[in-house]
């Protein structure tokens, strides 16, 4: 490996700083009292406490799943702080002027300016710091269109009936071990409601930031698009560098009614640990969308570059006739990272269609697995699926695996799955070198070409960002 390549590989994680801020944290550990305490701190309605306690009691009976192709030491669930909030933000803030300047500065450093003058003109942002939502921009403009975009705690105060109607309908409290844990202790998250017939006028975005070293982050996102509504939503995430592993167990639920359209994009860049695999986030996330109405559509796009371990399967339940599910994914692992990610497409309604495009890139000593399920139920007449998962190996110590599960219970359904594995060829690099393009540039061009099908699905501003992120993470991985 040449010297320039080495400096590129060892690019520091630039979001790894810690904000020194006074926090209101509860003691470590989890018990029924902790669940009650979190609920009380957030002044939640009675049904929410019931919801949490039900989930907690289920969780106690469940065991941690072991089937994923990842290894990690046992997690001590009693050694995690389940709630941490900046002290000054415990009261509801009316305007940005009330927010601790240190927090605004943090988000500015992360490239997410919240103040009126600097923020992006066409993107509304909900900023979440450890366990609470700090600020949501453009709320008033959105309200004019009837769009509700706020933190889930606020929604629980202002629109409890909507939360009660939809929360837990897509991912039930007892769905899986981490979803149950999340349901019991989730602290905050975003809530989006697009009423009938409204096309959301701007991109919505949530930015998650873990700051406290001992905190687990458990956020919950709920997006509801009523008949004929449409929305594009993006989440981003970063965390400081710590030597210890932190748990991030989020739940995202999407509900699309008749003719609605939800596009959900993720650029995940949690701290991945150092090159020896020390530290980093355990990203154990349950994301599921329900195409409840006819002709509805849910599209997941994800760029997974961070986290020590990723365990994530954004899924679509295609219940309404003619509904469409899409999954576009780039998963990049380097050093000691482990990713077991993919999707589930459950076809229930007639003429439902789904597309899966997954691109996995593994470098260093990482493990990168695609695990997907395509299920055609007996009533899904005329259902179609096309899956393609391509892997690119950089170096001979990285691992690329595919585990596609296909279950077909319907004669009229049609399923196609394809997978391939490749590497960046010597000839390709030589061709670029001939044209005076350095090895690093050549690799980043080849990688971004490999990922083009997925990058083109991202909203414009973020596609460029994600492309840059990929080349930054990868350059020099071949040497």
């Amino acid at each position, binding site marked *: 490996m040449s010297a320039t390549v080495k400096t590129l590989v060892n690019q520091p994680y630039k979001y790894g700083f810690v904000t020194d801020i006074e926090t209101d944290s509860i003691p470590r550990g989890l018990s029924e009292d902790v669940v009650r305490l979190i609920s009380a701190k957030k002044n939640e309605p009675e049904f929410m406490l019931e919801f949490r306690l039900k989930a907690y009691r289920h969780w106690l009976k469940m065991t941690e799943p072991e*089937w994923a192709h990842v290894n990690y030491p046992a997690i001590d669930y009693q050694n995690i702080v389940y709630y941490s909030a900046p002290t000054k933000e415990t009261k509801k803030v009316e305007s940005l002027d009330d927010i601790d300047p240190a927090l605004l500065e943090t988000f500015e450093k992360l490239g997410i300016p919240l103040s009126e003058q600097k923020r992006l003109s066409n993107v509304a942002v909900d900023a979440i710091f450890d366990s609470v939502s700090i600020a949501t921009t453009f709320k008033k403009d959105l309200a004019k269109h009837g769009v509700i975009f706020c933190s889930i705690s606020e929604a629980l105060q202002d629109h409890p009936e909507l939360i009660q109607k939809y929360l837990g309908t897509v991912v039930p409290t007892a769905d899986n071990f981490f979803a149950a844990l999340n349901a019991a202790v989730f602290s905050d998250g975003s809530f989006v409601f697009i009423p009938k017939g409204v096309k959301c006028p701007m991109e919505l975005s949530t930015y998650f930031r873990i700051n406290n070293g001992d905190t687990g982050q458990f956020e919950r996102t709920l997006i509801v698009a009523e008949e004929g509504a449409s929305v594009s939503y993006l989440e981003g995430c970063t965390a400081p560098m710590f030597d210890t592993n932190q748990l991030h167990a989020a739940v995202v639920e999407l509900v699309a009614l008749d003719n609605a359209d939800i596009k959900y994009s993720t650029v995940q860049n949690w701290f991945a640990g150092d090159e020896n695999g020390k530290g980093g986030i355990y990203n154990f996330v349950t994301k599921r969308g329900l195409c409840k109405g006819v002709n509805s559509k849910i599209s997941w796009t994800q760029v997974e570059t961070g986290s020590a371990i990723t365990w994530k399967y954004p899924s679509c339940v295609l219940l309404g006739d003619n509904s469409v599910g899409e999954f576009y994914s780039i998963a990049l692992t380097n050093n000691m990272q482990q990713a077991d990610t993919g999707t589930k497409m459950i076809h229930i309604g007639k003429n439902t269609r789904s597309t899966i495009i997954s691109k996995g890139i593994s470098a260093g000593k990482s493990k990168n697995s695609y695990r997907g399920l395509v299920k*055609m139920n*007996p009533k899904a007449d005329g259902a179609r699926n096309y899956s393609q998962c391509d*892997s690119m*190996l*950089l*170096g*001979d*110590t*990285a*691992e*690329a*695996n*595919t*585990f*596609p*599960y*296909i*279950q*077909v*219970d*319907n*004669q*009229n*359904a*049609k*399923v*196609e*799955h*394809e*997978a*391939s*594995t*490749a*590497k960046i060829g010597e000839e390709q690099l030589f061709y670029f070198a001939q044209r005076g393009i350095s090895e690093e540039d050549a690799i980043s061009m080849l990688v971004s070409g490999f990922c083009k099908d997925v990058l083109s699905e991202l909203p414009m501003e973020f596609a460029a960002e994600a492309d840059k992120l990929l080349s930054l993470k990868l350059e020099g991985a071949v040497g």
Partner: protein
Amino acid sequence: MSITASEQAIAAMDNITMLDLSLAPLLRLAEEGNPVFNAGSAGWLREVRIQGAYRVSHRAFPTRKDEDWRVTDVSVLRKTHFRQAAQTSIQSHELDVFALEETAASRIVFVNGIYAPEFSDTSALPKGLYVGNLAGLSAECAADLVNYLSQQSRNLDVFASLNDAGVRDVAVIWADKNVVVDQPIHILFIGKPEDQPVAMQSRCVAIAESGSSLNLVEYYGAATQGCSDHDQQLYFNNTVTEVWVKANAQINHVRIQREGGSGIQIGNTAIAQAQDSRYHLTEVNMGAQLSRHTLTLNQNGAQTETILKGLTMVGGEQTSDTHTAVNLQHPHGTVDQLHKCIVDGSARSIFNGKVDVPQNAQMTNAAQLNRNLLLSPKARVDTKPELQITADNVKCTHGATVSQLEDDEIFYLRSRGLNEYDARHLLIDAFAAEILNTIAIPSLNTGLVNCVACRTID
């Protein structure tokens, strides 16, 4: 070591009801005056059994909570009280369905897992090749077999260990160095159901020493009137076949599973391939109400070539499961796998194909394809082609498709004057032919093609 030692091992198996019921008598019968024991094998064979019983007692019976058995429910084996199948004989006409004219003088027959010399004839086979059962092997060779028997099966699932524990007789095919045998060798395992559920164990070892070449037809059927699809009493055939292909050797292996309509077969095939060897398998699964075939292949040397072709054809209430695992360990290996399933009625077909390419298996060329044809609204397919790759300089692809007969294709044939019935069958036959045509034995090929046609009549 004595019977009591094996029985002690069994006593620890409280959690495995099926084994409680069947293993003790199985072991006892196997040791009482059985022809298997001769001077060369007596000592080590007992050891194989005891170790098998020990492994069985230390492993849980598979349930749907195990990843490998997630979609195949074998709980019927736990619930049923099986008796050990008796040593018995059959009428010669019961054999006619499975006999092949090409192998009239190169055939060995096992009934309920025990050698039946009256039906076996190996006169057409050349010198330098042993085809028969364990008892007929010379003392020297029998002693040498300790290096083969159970050496692969001990690493397989609990059913393979059960076979180790209860082995009563072994079909042995052993070719010396540089012996090339073009004549196909027919190894026929016939099960004879009784009026209550019985369990039997079939065991086969095939060894091709370096530079040799073999054509094997491993055939499982049931003794009944006419076609083996007819219903009889439930029976359970637990089979294990271990194959060694030494350096530069070649084996063409055909495995036909046509168990009776109420039979259950759990089969394990394990193959060890040495450097520069070639192994071609064509497997056909048609019979049994519930069948599972687990194939484990290890490429233990460089430049090995593996071709796996499979056809599963099920209808009615049948369930057929094929799990294959190919482990490449050395550079320049090639794997070409095509598995096809035709599923009719309320049947269910399961395919799980795993290809593992570790770091030192550079320059591997592996292709795997699973294609499924659904013929009825209630038919069901589960497929999972798995790839695990660490080596970077490799070419690996896999794919899976599930579909029904294309309307366009039927329309095309109808526009050429074929009626709907003929058009459908032409397409189904062609789908199956891609696999069946790799079988180079004309009478077997014809028989199977007829079988496919017979099974798809509406």
